[in-house]
């Protein structure tokens, strides 16, 4: 591939990558533990999954330090996906959202 464009974002350190890895592993362990506890799963597990996904996107995919246009483009796709999810749930399984 030809010479990369001279547009280099700031980088995270190796220590940051390892810290994110540990956080992901710990959060996964917490998620599994929650499934064995007598507490509602959805309000705990969904935010934990979002945090994990956010860590991967921000640090491993470098959105934290890269040009904002990449974040805008990616978030637009995610928002469209979320819109699709909520609209289809409302249409075919509204009880999942406790909507009568």
């Amino acid at each position, binding site marked *: *591939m*030809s*010479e*990369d*464009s001279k*547009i280099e974002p700031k*980088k995270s350190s*190796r220590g940051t*990558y*390892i810290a*994110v*890895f540990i956080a*992901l*592993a710990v959060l*996964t362990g917490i*998620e*599994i533990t*929650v*499934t064995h506890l007598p507490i509602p*799963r*959805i309000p705990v*597990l*969904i935010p*934990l*999954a979002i945090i*994990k*996904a956010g860590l*991967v*996107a921000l*640090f*491993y*995919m470098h959105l934290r330090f890269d*040009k904002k*246009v*990449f974040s805008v*483009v*990616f978030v*637009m*796709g*995610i928002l*469209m*996906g*979320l819109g*699709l*999810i909520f609209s*289809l*749930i409302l249409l*075919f*399984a509204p009880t*999942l959202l406790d909507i009568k």
Partner: protein
Amino acid sequence: MIQETASVERPSMGVDNRKLGVWVWLGSEAVFFSALIVVYIVMRNQSVTGPYPRETLNVTLTAVNTFILICSSLTMVTALSAIQSGNQKGLWRWLVATMLLGLAFLGGQAFEFTSLANQGLSLSSNLFGGTFFTLTGFHGAHVLIGVIWIGFVVARARRGGYTQSSHLMVELTGLYWHFVDLVWIIIFTLVYLI
């Protein structure tokens, strides 16, 4: 008049167009997987006959598989970090590690799919089976494509094809691989834990 050939990497938005293209593609992949996820969410408990999710899915095995994929994200970003520092040998080694972890994940998926098939779950067994295998099958296909993609990058890296100043393909490969991991994080929570 001499016409200047448009350079594919000439930035008009201040970013590399190839990288922007990959991000747009990943955004579309987010919509794709959202569609598969919502169909699974809506349909999984509407099967007339079994097997049913709670009695068939192996959370422990899948948790190990999830950990393997998280490890592969670390090795992938470490590979990129290596070539950003000009370390070609480090790049090659960490890419191979990523490939091996990806293959391990696929092996775990194959084992799980076989185990579920032995319990009577298939694409055509019931709504749960159809939506489950479609969602996880497509994700597995993405992992397989990622492993093959990394293989090509490894081959070029082995020949010294990437340098500190020229390694965009490594970064783009990493973006795809981390996205596949990100999708699995969501799938693991929604399918196996909730």
